[in-house]
């Protein structure tokens, strides 16, 4: 087997829609895995990038707490090229909508005041992640390639991966550049 390009992905504060869009490349996935090894993804058996590192790391979702920050840093450390996938990773997206409300108010609303909650309590286990301002991943790690969209069109995802395989830096334009 020729040396395959290794690809890993993970998701942060996201809805997994970008990964669904990745799967939307449909039959082209068969062609892709002829050149690429998908090592670890949230949708496969292995979840974390191998210690030896991968060629291409893909992150979906925004950084919004200490846990997602750690995941982002880990992926950056273990990838040669890092792709920010989707509006949340690129721009911050929907998770940033809670930034203008203070953290206490958010936690109170979620765990105590929500309509279906009875005898609510804000969890305070020391193992839990600490809430932070939601922000795009480039506020935490260096990003090499931005792939915006909500979700990015499957064609754009396939285009970016194909260009990288061909040794070119992808240039998003036309139908491949679709933010919303």
């Amino acid at each position, binding site marked *: 087997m020729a040396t395959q390009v290794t690809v890993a992905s993970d998701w942060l504060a996201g809805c997994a829609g970008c990964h669904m869009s990745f799967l939307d490349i449909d039959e082209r996935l068969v062609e892709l895995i002829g050149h690429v090894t998908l090592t670890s993804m949230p949708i496969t058996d292995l979840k974390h990038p191998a210690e030896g590192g991968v060629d291409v790391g893909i992150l979906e979702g925004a950084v919004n707490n200490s846990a997602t920050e750690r995941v982002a840093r880990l992926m950056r450390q273990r990838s040669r090229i890092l792709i920010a996938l989707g509006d949340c990773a690129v721009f*911050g997206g*929907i998770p940033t909508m809670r930034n*203008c409300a203070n953290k206490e108010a958010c936690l109170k609303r979620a765990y105590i005041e929500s309509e279906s909650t009875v005898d609510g309590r804000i969890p305070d286990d020391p193992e839990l992640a600490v809430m932070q301002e939601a922000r795009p991943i480039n506020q935490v790690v260096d990003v090499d390639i931005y792939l915006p969209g909500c979700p990015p069109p499957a064609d754009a995802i396939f285009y970016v991966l194909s260009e990288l395989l061909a040794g070119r830096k992808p240039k998003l334009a036309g139908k491949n550049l679709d*933010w*919303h």
Partner: protein
Amino acid sequence: MVAQTTINLTVNGHAIQARPGQTVLEAAADAGIAIPALCHHPHLKPEGACRLCLVEIEKQRTLQPACTFPAAEGMVVQTESEKAVASRKLALQLLFSERSHYCMHCPQSGTADSTDCELQKLGYRYGINSWSYPPDYAKPWPLDASRKHFVMDHARCILCRRCVRACNTIAANHTLGVHQRGSRTLICADDNVRFGDSTCVSCGTCLQVCPTGALTDRRSAYRGHDCDVTRTKAVCLGCAVGCGIEAVTRDNQLLRVEGDWTAGNEGLLCATGRFEVVEPKPQRVLWPMVKQDGRLVETSWDKALTLVAERFRESHRVAGLATPRLPNESLAAFACFFNEVLMSNEVALLYGEDPPVELGMSASLRDITMADFIAVISGDPLRQQKVVGHLIKRALDNEARLFVVNDRATELDRYAQVRLPLQDVSQHGESPFERLRHAYHLRGTGISQLKAAVETAQRPVILYGSGLTTTVYSALRALPDKVRFLPLISGTNAAGAARLGLRPRPVHGAALYLMLGDDTTDGLPVTPRQFTVVQSAYRSPATETADVVLPDLIWAEQKGHIINIEGRTLPVTPLLQAPKSVHACWDTLLQLSMRMGSSLSYDQIHDISMAV
């Protein structure tokens, strides 16, 4: 120095020509070269706020804004040079970082082909796929949803000030302004109050010019981008001004109404014509209904019309009342039906005033804005012909003088230099005929003041209502030829109705035919035992007390012509397809006349309405 008629310059290597006074942006646009800009708008004075249009001009020390830079002979301009493009990308990145531009849930957001957001469109064009400078995510930008019809989301505002300029120079309402400075700058209303509590009149001009999703229409949000909808130029039937509109429709639904920039009103509309028309309406009448045991029951056209023909034949006299909110063709059919088929004179308009008296040369809407003296005699245009009111205020902004002549307070009072009182002389009419209706008189001193003001003016315009005494009308008629007149008519096609001999007056008959179109009225002007037929698009208190209800078209389904206050004949263009069971009222009248043994034909009606 001889004035040049054309200026020669080069843009992106192309030799183009400009007229004296044109900016580089305008000259390039005329030559088919579009220079990106956000705060520029063809109907507003250039602002130079967004800095997107910066271009390289040889021999200039720095990049220059094409929207304000005057074109000059021999100029060499590059609009897409490396320097210009870099500057443009920087401007875009700075705009995005300034506020929380969340495209994902904005109604205007779309792909490069479908987006309605001019900011997003430029972002796509210049390949922006990430933000160089992070916005302050924690900063909450206000969202003002206190107005009924549209919302202001400051997170999407780029401070282009198109809205402020539109409010000031197009609507002349002077509500919008700018509050604070620097990164805290916000568009505000009056003294920074909620829009819903301000002097805003919801004319929606700001909404029409906003390049982003900052100002968003409520009713049409998310219902289709510009590329999904159909735009049809038509005429608003909200009042007698007959403003040009662009109706936005999709799948036989009216989504939104916008002002037609190419019509006499130049894009300006009022809340009635822009927003009220898309508000939810009462229940639609789809089939004829007949009263049985005190309840209205749906029936076939055949049964309903047969019953009506029978009862009309039996009745000693049939009276007819029509709303003025109908095209000439419908009103002609109505008048014809009564004169020829029913042989009845008891036919009139349901509401309105006497038809306007001819005084002289008619003013156009443009004439109002160019006037240097305006007199408003017995009328309240800011309330009843709102767009005319806006145009008057525009003239006042250009230092026109205003006389308001009225017996009661009007919305224009505070803008008038001179207020002359009208006297109600209804009891002491100058002829026995006038004692029957209201008459308003202006004393000789007032008429002299008016004459003197007209004398010194170069472009005087007089707007006048009905019900003035013949003395006043004669005095107005005697004014110099330079005066332009505009009657203040209420009732969309009252002018057309007047030419058909239809005026508002009481009518009497054993039976009543009430043609309502899509108007609604609170009650019937009838005695309880009359046989009443109501032709109406909507159910209302009027239809509930009728013996027979016949469906009718709404304004957007009508076809025909109206005559507006300028005296111009304007086309009524169908925008929507009516439900199959609903017929135009003239069609109904033809069917009815056939059942009454008459030979009233379509051609007859057509000829009469063409003559109007």
